[in-house]
């Protein structure tokens, strides 16, 4: 099954990391998005993800190009601007075995696609919803997005006078059971969170601050590498333990909390930010708001509630993919039509 050299390490499915890569990135050199792509590849490899079950959805924008750059064994769907959530919803209902990854940007999800984001989260679609957040429209050459901080500047010198939308507090408000913020420049944290995300059943919202090296990496930007690095406050060290890998436990030393998923997987949390409890919804909201007021980015697992049923379960769908149900199971027989016709006479 492997395509790389025999010496390359394989995961439990016998795949090498090379089996999780995609096409070559065409983004700018140094783009934060490429660092995220690299961690998706690592996390999928380490989590023993079946590549052929992976579906990758996106809208329009630089971030939305990235599904082409990872897991070539999976199926990609680069749709229209801001409408990725509807695509993920339809496909995930058609086949509940699929492992759904949506990659979007701050413009795609918080401006044009705000409505679809909100409702996908409300419905708890089974998907990892990644927002590659750089506060700027890169592909149209540098206009503000709705996550741009008030008072921040464009490269051109234009100032943003409007308040930002925060995807994380919004997602928590909407009832999302897995909300995290990461920084593309912190691969270790991102890797742990992505692995936990793969094990989670419902909607995972990951807001990943990902600086745009071309249009938003200047000194007056609040989304530059330097600014984010200086203002990144990791909440905790995370360790993720997949259910099937209990023997490889890697609980961070001094873990203060362990969250268990329905499949038995565990997230071990070692708090850095004193008193932060990611299972406390209101506490999380308060802490995030306080940090934002100070101009900080709290990063890590902001909120987790692993017990919420995803949409296919809410709809009480059959276990098998709807897409391939046999005709005999979905087409009522002649007696049913006869019964219906009698009732209409």
């Amino acid at each position: 099954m492997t395509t790389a050299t025999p010496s390359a390490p394989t995961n439990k499915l016998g795949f090498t990391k090379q089996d999780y890569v995609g096409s070559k990135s065409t983004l700018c050199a140094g783009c934060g998005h490429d660092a995220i792509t690299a961690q998706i590849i690592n996390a999928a490899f380490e989590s023993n993800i079946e590549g052929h079950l992976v579906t990758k959805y996106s809208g329009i924008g630089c971030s939305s190009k990235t599904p082409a750059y990872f897991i070539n064994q999976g199926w990609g769907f680069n749709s229209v601007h801001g409408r990725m959530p509807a695509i993920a919803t339809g496909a995930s209902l058609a086949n509940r075995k699929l492992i759904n990854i949506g990659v979007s940007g701050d413009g795609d999800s918080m401006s044009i696609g705000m409505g679809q984001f909100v409702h996908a989260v409300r419905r708890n679609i089974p998907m990892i919803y990644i927002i590659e957040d750089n506060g700027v429209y890169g592909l149209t050459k540098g206009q503000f997005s709705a996550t741009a901080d008030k008072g921040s500047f464009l490269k051109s010198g234009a100032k943003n006078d409007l308040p930002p939308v925060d995807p994380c507090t919004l997602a928590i408000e909407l009832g999302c059971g897995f909300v995290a913020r990461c920084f593309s420049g912190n691969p270790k944290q991102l890797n742990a969170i992505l692995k936990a995300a793969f094990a989670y059943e419902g909607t995972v919202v990951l807001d990943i601050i990902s600086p745009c090296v071309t249009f938003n990496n200047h000194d007056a930007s609040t989304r530059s590498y330097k600014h984010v690095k200086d203002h990144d406050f990791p909440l905790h060290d995370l360790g993720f333990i997949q259910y099937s890998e209990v023997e490889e436990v890697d609980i961070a030393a001094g873990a203060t909390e362990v969250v268990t998923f329905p499949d038995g997987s565990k997230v071990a949390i070692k708090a850095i930010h004193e008193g932060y409890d990611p299972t406390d919804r209101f506490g999380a909201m308060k802490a995030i708001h306080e940090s934002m007021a100070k101009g900080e980015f709290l990063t890590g697992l902001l909120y987790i509630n692993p017990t919420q049923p995803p949409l296919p379960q809410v709809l009480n769908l059959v276990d098998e993919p709807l897409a391939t149900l046999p005709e005999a199971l979905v087409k009522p027989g002649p007696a049913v039509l006869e019964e219906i016709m009698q009732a209409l006479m």
Partner: protein
Amino acid sequence: MTASLAAPSTPLGAKTRINDFSIQVATVNGSGSQTANTVLLRAIFQMGVFVSGKNLFPSNIAGLPTWFTIRASAKGYVARKASNEMLILMNAETAKEDIAKADAGALVIYDEPLQLDKLRADLSYIPVPFQKLVTASCPEPKLHKLVKNMIYVGVAARLLSVDMEEVKKAITKQLKGKAKAIEINQAAAVAGYDWAMENLEDQDHIKVVRDNKTNGLIIVDGNEACALGALFAGVTVVGWYPITPASSLVETFIEYAEEYRKDPATGKSTVAIVQMEDELASAGVVLAAGWAGARSMTSTAGPGVSLMSEFIGLGYYVEAPGVFFNVARTGPSTGLPTRTQQSDVELCAKCSHGDTQHINLYPGNMEECFQFAYDAFDLAERFQTPIFVVTDLDLGMQNWSSKPFAYPSKPYDRGKVLNQQQLAEAKDWGRYKDVDGDGICYRSLPGTAGGKGSYFTRGSGHNAYAQYSEKPEDYVEVVDRLRRKYETAKTHVPTPVFRNLGSVKGVLAFGSSDPAVIEAQDILAEEGLKTDYLRLRALPFTAEVDAFVEEKQVVYVVEQNRDGQMANLFRETYPQHATKFKSVLHYNGHAIDAKCIVDQITAFEQK
């Protein structure tokens, strides 16, 4: 005034319109009048007489005027008739205007306190003390408003000589299972009937005489017929958003799915139905589900299609299947949400920006609503594209009598899908490669194991291998093939239906115009103008349509919109015959009637 009325045996005058009349009932919406009107319609239907009903209702929940027209026709004409022989006026607000518009000689049943009988001398007035009768027949005051309408059903039944047993049966049917409601409503209808018996002279203006024309027929609306088609087509994903007049399509489907789409082994559902946040999201769900291999659908109306157009273009270009029911209403913009029109013809033919062409199905009756809904899923998967099934409010929400639907025994056509083994054996597979020369490519479904067949779907430029490309030759190859695919559809879509009286003059119509066109054709023939009628049932135009256009000296294109949209499509498709197409139009929101067609064709002929 009192006369003894031995109803069925009353001698009828030479001028009596037997089983051939229209009744218009004017009420206030939200007053239960829809139930009463359906009961009257059903009772006449049970008398074996062809009958059709048109509900002209406001975009409102309660308190605004609504009119319901019931037409009986021995000849089987079911289009709206422009003139009415009986009026039942229950709405004080519109009564004077209704009287002013009434056809001379009409019978006018009205609520006594309205005192309408001095308004015009050329009408026959029948004042009825509704309040008194409802108070006497119904013990519960809070139900009086709802039951009052059932009194006029009894009065009308008496005057028309409709058997009271049929009225009772119709009430039982209409209020299925609700014993108390049945009892109260039957009592009210009987009270009206008995009062009429004692207090009214018989009339020989219009009568119902028992016939056998409706034996074995059903009464159904087009939305229910489409819902049933989808049920039997095995739809597995439904994304929708409420909109008049399309909501009842999915709502009826939901009711049937509750009963017939559970896995018997587990009780779990074999269909996912999600009410989305808007029509755009609904369209995304439908196309993505189709892309992932499900049979998927939505139902909407014009404003919804406008919103969906962004996704429809994506579906066309990435070649994702999905069924889109458009139950058209009167546009533009919000327009008249509760009135009918065929004004989305061009929208559905070419929905979305760029060069797009869509397969459209135009059912013209209830059996076709059922059958085309079923077939649409086959076509969507065969052609890997969005399919529009275009009906309208008239077909979708009005009551129509129909033959029972035949069981669609043809197995599903799931189209060109490669499974794991076929993908393993395929040499140089490309998602958008035209292997068979019909423009239709082979696809794979997400989740297929084996490491072959994965590809990247994109609404941006792509080549035959689904790779991103901006090369002119790659772009042209794909869009030219899409055009070829559309050509292939010409041999797969429903062919037209003809009603030829032997003429070089053609009439062309589609959808809900059919009954009015048939009636108009007969009237014109009586007046000496024979026509050949082609009823179009799909886009693209098939070879039969080509031949008809070629043969005829003139083609009257009958349609329910202002701009002659279908005629425009014909002029564009057949530029060499462009001058043959003459538009016969009806677009005021009411269902089309035969008279307007006769008048316009006659005017053209006299030029």
